């Protein structure tokens, strides 16, 4: 037995828990009307397996840090993989015990007239729980590398919040498809078939299997991410190639869904795109589909990855000394994501039609200006997050960055709108209804200059903090009194 699993079994599986959990769950299933039995099973699984399980997985490592047992564990002879799966399964032993009883109740109660088999639903639920738990533990392993994290038990709820956000980002699109399929089933009465395309393949006929396959591929990536995060804790170095592969996988996966909307683009006379050639016409919708995902990954990694100035200095040192391997090892994931976004932007511009009518008024938007504006807004936010991370009191810097972003994207523009300064508000937050709904187009070139100015300002602030840090870090201590 995995030693971690054994330790958790000693600590978590108390006799009280072993008796009370089935008593409550089976008792509820019996006490409630028969029609509610499957609901008890489903609700029990989501509460215990997903909510409690994710919280337990996220909190396991920060608890070791606060209890001062983590350093000693990191010196263990267990491989990162043994440690990772032992901790993942061990920390969620009690939630899984309850979740499996719930699944049993759900399976026994069955579903009437369901287009999806009980087995498929169980596979889906288990996949969701495992991927979210692995993802939560991976995030916690990243966050404990940041100064001050894990010292407050309240931080453990952050993992649940992050994981649930990810859950909705990932599972909701799949659920929408499934709901649509089920709605269609009940309307037609005999079939699950809907038209959903992935790279021109109609996956509507195999929607359930496609969803399950996608989910279990994600389970695999989550476990790989967890393993790699554990490696960092055990002082191994990771090659950035795996992260690059993961991002490329995600983008390729997402690009497959472009076929569902590109027909509307090509067939809509109002948009009237004029492409440079057939290859550009084929690739443009895919690049556009990938863009929100690429932007989301920049922000996700910026906020969960440590932005340790010592790491940056090691990176620069390796570059200066031309240690190529060391240089690659120290490249942060967010930097890879920014670089990939830039590459995607250039490719999109290459494939883009000359003009594209995007607004309700149908006026032309110069995509070059539009996309570079997005890039400079991202650069502004990246600089802002780094500026906070380089602060001398860098505790909770990411939380402070989130507040800054909240102010920049929501509060300030709304105040300016209230004061009727709609144009000024537009230059801080371009998605401004008052400006975009006018019959005359706003000046996008000024918007681009505004974005460049803002990013230059935060880059300069970053530069000042960097110099301060550099001077402080290298400052020699006072000479000893010998």
């Amino acid at each position, binding site marked *: 037995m995995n*030693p*971690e699993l*054994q*330790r958790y079994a*000693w*600590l978590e599986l108390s006799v009280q828990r072993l008796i009370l959990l089935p008593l409550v769950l089976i008792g509820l299933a019996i006490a409630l009307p028969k029609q509610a039995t499957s609901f008890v099973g489903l609700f029990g699984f989501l509460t215990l397996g997903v909510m409690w399980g994710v919280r337990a997985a996220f909190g396991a490592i920060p608890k*070791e840090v606060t*209890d*001062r*047992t983590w*350093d*000693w*564990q*990191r*010196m*263990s*002879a*267990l491989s990162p993989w043994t440690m990772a799966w032992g901790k993942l399964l061990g920390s969620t032993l009690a939630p899984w015990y309850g979740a499996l009883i719930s699944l049993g109740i759900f399976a026994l109660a069955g579903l009437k007239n369901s287009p999806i088999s009980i087995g498929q639903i169980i596979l889906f639920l288990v996949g969701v729980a495992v991927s979210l738990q692995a993802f939560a533990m991976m995030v916690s392993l990243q966050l404990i590398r940041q*100064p001050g994290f894990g010292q407050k038990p309240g931080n453990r709820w952050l993992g649940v919040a992050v994981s649930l956000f990810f859950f909705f980002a990932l599972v909701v699109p799949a659920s929408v498809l499934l709901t649509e399929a089920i709605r269609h089933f009940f309307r037609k009465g005999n079939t699950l078939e809907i038209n959903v395309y992935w790279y021109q393949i109609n996956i509507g006929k195999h929607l359930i299997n496609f969803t399950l396959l996608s989910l279990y591929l994600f389970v695999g990536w989550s476990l790989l991410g967890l393993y790699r995060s554990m490696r960092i804790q*055990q*002082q*191994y170095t990771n090659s950035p190639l795996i992260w690059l592969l993961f991002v490329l996988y995600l983008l390729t996966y997402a690009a497959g869904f472009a076929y569902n909307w590109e027909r509307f683009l090509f067939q809509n006379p109002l948009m009237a795109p004029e492409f440079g050639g057939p290859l550009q016409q084929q690739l443009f919708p895919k690049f556009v589909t990938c863009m929100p995902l690429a932007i989301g990954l920049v922000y996700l990694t910026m906020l969960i990855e440590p932005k*340790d*100035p*010592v790491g940056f*200095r*090691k990176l620069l*040192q390796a570059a200066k000394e031309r240690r190529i391997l060391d240089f690659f090892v120290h490249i942060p994931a967010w930097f890879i994501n920014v670089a990939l976004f830039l590459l995607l932007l250039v490719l999109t511009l290459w494939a883009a039609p000359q003009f594209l009518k995007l607004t309700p008024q149908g006026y032309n938007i110069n995509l070059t200006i539009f996309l570079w504006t997005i890039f400079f807004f991202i650069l502004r936010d990246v600089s802002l997050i780094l500026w906070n991370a380089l602060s*001398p009191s*860098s505790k909770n810097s990411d939380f402070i960055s989130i507040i800054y972003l909240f102010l920049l994207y929501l509060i300030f523009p709304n105040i300016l709108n209230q004061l009727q300064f709609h144009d000024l508000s537009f230059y801080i937050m371009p998605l401004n209804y008052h400006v975009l709904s006018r019959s005359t187009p706003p000046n996008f070139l000024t918007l681009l200059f505004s974005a460049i100015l803002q990013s230059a300002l935060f880059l300069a602030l970053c530069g000042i903090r960097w110099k301060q*840090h550099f001077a*402080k*870090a*290298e*400052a*020699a*201590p*006072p*000479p*000893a009194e*010998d």
Partner: protein
Amino acid sequence: MITVEDLVFEYPTRRVLFGVSFTIQEGSIVALVGPNGAGKTTLMRCIAALVQPFSGHVKIEGIQTTVDPHACQRRLGYLSDFFGLYDQLTIRQSLHYAARIRGIQESDIPKRLLQTAERLALTDRLEQKAGELSRGLRQRLAIGQAIIHHPKVLLLDEPASGLDPEARKTLSRLLIQLQSEGMTLIVSSHILSELEEYSSHLMVIRDGRLRDFRPIRLEGHEHPRRLRLHLARPFQGLPDILAQFDAIQDTQIENLSAILFFQGDLDAQHRLLRHLILADVPVCALQEEKENLSELYLGPAPTPTRS
């Protein structure tokens, strides 16, 4: 056994180790001392391969910690200053778990567990929960967890803090026993009198730099011994009489006592004493004096030496 070369370590807001270099021989007990914030704990964590230095290297038996941290950690035991235990586990479960995560074969665990418990005088408490133990017993259990895999190097950060005199004595005895079995130890502590009892070397860290590293317990005849001569009354001709002895390398003479740095065995010491008495020097006592760690630490530090 342990080689540290030009070690530099930085925290995000400051540099804490500035090019520290030294070599520790097998079987030494090194007393690591220095004021709070000097970099002692960071140095230990670098040696334990728990953190990666900004630059420089740490090698354990020739293996670089940044290249193969696992191989280094297999050779190491580490007890941090604020260690944690799983309060709900019994001593038996704690040691069993420690043995398993340290890679000991399942079949060897019962024997190793009992050996360790015996060595730490915990045999009669195996079924007691860690949360119910006194500070001293918790310390013993933590040391047991750190040594159950028979490491070649043991790093102890402030192991005696919070212990009563009896528990400290037990700890001293244990460390000497571990050294006699060939283990190399680095012990950081503020209680210098404690370290004096068992340390073979003194290492002083101040402001992130190595300020002193020297042997403090000199064995054999290659190093001069420190003899203190006590007089009943002041004696004018003492320097001339002492100068006749080649074995005396240096002297520090005060009013009623003198310190002699004496390079010779017990027979030579006897001859010196007889000569002093025959020369009518009012000798009260002549005894060997061990170097005082507090004096060494607080006194002027010489140029760092490599052991």
